Each structure stands twice: as C-alpha cells, then as structure tokens.
C-alpha cells in the first residue's frame, strides 16, 4: 500500500483514524507494518503490501 491510502481508510470497528507504523518499505510501497486505531487501539497488520482491515473476529484465513 501507499501512504496516500491513509486518506480513505479508517478503523472498521469505530471509523476513527488510523496511525501508520512502517516496518519495511519498497520505494513508495509500504510492504510490512501495521495500522493502529487512534481510538480503540486495535492493530491491523500490513503484510506483503496488503493492509488487512478485517475486524479481528473475521481475520482467520479459512472461509467462514
């Protein structure tokens, strides 16, 4: 993901803003890191450049 995405995403639980924490970057692309809700503190991982903004109870890889 690119940092510009921060303008349009929010916490899926309470719709508050997210803070971006970067672990690994490739040019403009944030490859690894996390998004942290400024209100509830929930942490959403960024893996292989894809932010996982599913609510925590839907995060399992397996289909429901």
């Amino acid at each position, binding site marked *: 993901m690119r940092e510009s995405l921060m303008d349009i*995403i929010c916490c899926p639980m309470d719709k508050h803003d997210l803070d971006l924490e970067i672990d690994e970057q490739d040019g403009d692309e944030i490859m690894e890191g996390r998004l942290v809700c400024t209100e509830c503190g929930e942490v959403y991982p960024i893996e292989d450049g*894809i932010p996982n*903004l*599913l609510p925590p109870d839907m995060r399992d890889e397996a289909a429901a």
Partner: protein
Amino acid sequence: MTRERDTGAGGSGGAEGPADSARDLASRRGMETSVYQPAEDSELLARAAVGHAEGRTLEVGTGSGWVAEQVASETAASVVASDVNPGACRQARERAERLRAESESGTGAESERTDAGFEVVRADLLAPFADEVFDTVLFNPPYLPTDPDNEWDDWMETALSGGESGRELIEPFLDDVGRVLAPGGEVLLLVSSLTGYEDVLAYAEARGFSHEVAVQESYPFETLSVVVFSQN
C-alpha cells in the same frame, strides 16, 4: 456469474456454457477454485465502469482484480480494490503491481499514465473506508440464491452465494454505501434477474437512491444489468 450449479444441466456443447458449475468450469480451465475469475458479469461491470468511473473509485469484492485493472488502465480514476478473501487480495495485488510496472516502463498500452496501478485492501464490504471519500463505488456481488443446506463453506462459496434471497451481501452494501460516497458520487452495482431485480431497486430506493440502467444483457439463465445509483 451465469452458473447453475444446482441443476446439473450443464454441457450443452458450449466451451463455457452458463449451465456449468463453477467448479467444473474452473477445473476445465485448469484454475484454482478459491478466487472468482473474470466472467460475463465482470466484463459487463468493467464496460459500464470504464464509462462512469472518475475521481476516487472503489471496487468492492474485486476477486482476481480484473475489473479494477480495466478501470485503472482505461480511465483517469484512482482505484482501490477490496476483497474479504486473502487469496483474491494477493491475486489482485499481483495484477496491480504488473500494471504499475508496465506503465512505468512504458511498454503497456497505457504508457501515458504515470501511475496506472491500484491499491488493494482486505476488507469486509465497506467497513474500513472513511465517510464521503469515493466518487464511484463498483460492486459485482455474490448473488446466487443458495439453499443453506447446500453451501460449500469455502472461498468460492463466499464469492458466489448471496444466501437464500441472493441479497445477503447486496443489502448491507446498500445500507452503508451512502456513507462512503462523496457528494454527487455514483454506485455501479451488477444485478442479476436471479437475485430479484425489482427487490434490489426497491431496497435501494428506500435508502434514498435513484437509479438508471447502464448496460443490460440477457443470457440463457439470467439477465444481467449494471445499475447506476445516485443519491437523491
């Protein structure tokens, strides 16, 4: 998704007959069965979207990312694609990276665009998107009415099944999409006759949307429409 997997009445001779089950189709194409691949409905949505998408555009339930790619490469829109399925997100992102690399190297058809990629987000419908940020929202929903006793419980089920009514994803989408739309924004929703066309329109109308039909095509088992909704 012209697929009649319950009738078993496939094999009318066509290479990709609409009566084939998704699984038969996928296995004959030698594809995995966990990510929905472009079909007639995708093509119809892409055709309408290329004519309408502008500004910031979101494709919900992007699957392989094919529709998002068409919009990103054929329009000036800045495109975000989302899916609940991690395999779909990975395929969509590979597609986005390929597109971006082609546009940067100038070898692709869209060498005039400096940045023809798109963003991929794993999401449950519209949940992680902020208020009033999208000018266009596209959705080819899972819409096949499905007997609860006949669910497959895998990602392809998630991509195809709209629950008993066929509208179990369409309704929550329509409940929330007004929130993420910028003023004057539009929603392009693929609606199948199998899903109850009039029911979908009535549901949207009750939530303050007016509509017009962008494209409509009839297939042996269903009529597919791309309906443009705008807020009254």
